[in-house]
């Protein structure tokens, strides 16, 4: 059972918001005493996802939550856009696949960096990606 403790919502519409979001996520991660390596992984994952959201979804909403499951705390990030959606999620989750000009590491790479990864997408409606990084995982 994962319980949310705090909730912070950020609208992402321009490139500079990436840095803003990273700083905000970092504040929360430090607050729950997440180790430096895990912080770096979480921030990098957040960076990848928010960049995807800007590039493919024309921006959207980022939700930062401190969550708790039993005795451990973590950070849950939700990225919601109203973009075109992803036609083939399985493909999008494969290393090296990209419809854009990137290396195609974004989604599969991000998944490797976090504890839990969830993606939902509907064509024409948008994409929601949720990740959790536990303070000690």
């Amino acid at each position, binding site marked *: 059972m994962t319980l949310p403790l705090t909730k912070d919502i950020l609208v992402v519409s321009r*490139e*500079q918001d*990436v*840095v803003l979001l*990273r700083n905000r996520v970092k504040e929360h991660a430090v607050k729950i005493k997440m180790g*430096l*390596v895990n*912080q*770096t*992984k979480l*921030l*990098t994952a957040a*960076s*990848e996802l928010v*960049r995807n959201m800007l590039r493919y979804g024309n921006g959207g909403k980022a939700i930062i939550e401190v969550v708790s499951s039993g005795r451990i705390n973590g950070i849950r990030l939700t990225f919601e856009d109203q973009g075109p959606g992803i036609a083939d999620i399985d493909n999008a989750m494969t*290393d090296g696949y990209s419809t854009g000009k*990137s*290396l195609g*590491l*974004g989604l*599969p*790479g*991000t998944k*490797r*960096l976090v504890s839990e990864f969830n993606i939902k997408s509907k064509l024409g409606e948008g994409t929601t990606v949720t990740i959790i990084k536990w303070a000690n995982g």
Partner: protein
Amino acid sequence: MDRIPILKMGPFLLVTIQIDLYDRLALDLEEDLVRMVEKTSAKGVLIDISAVTIVDSFMGRILGNIASMSRLLDAQTVVVGMQPAVAITLVELGLPLNGVSTALDVEKGMALLQSKMIFDEEEEQEEDDTAAN
């Protein structure tokens, strides 16, 4: 507008990235650096990322691009000062930055660039010698 300063030190260019880059800034740096390599006929580019806490796939690609572009213009690139957490994250992300030379700090990076330059000159010398024979 923000710009990352590029310093010229003898035959080398030195860039110290003190802030977390956003995309525009990174792209500008890439362009400025390549122009500077051409303008100053630099033989090496040293990029200090010791203050950078996040290198995501975009930033990683920029570093790779700078190295490849500089190589085409006859300059070597060395990235120095990567934080251990950044190295761990890059490898897990799947971006081991193949083709980018690294060193632990600026001093070692400079030494590496020097040795690369000497190596290049010797090779050219040898080629000239073989051609002469």
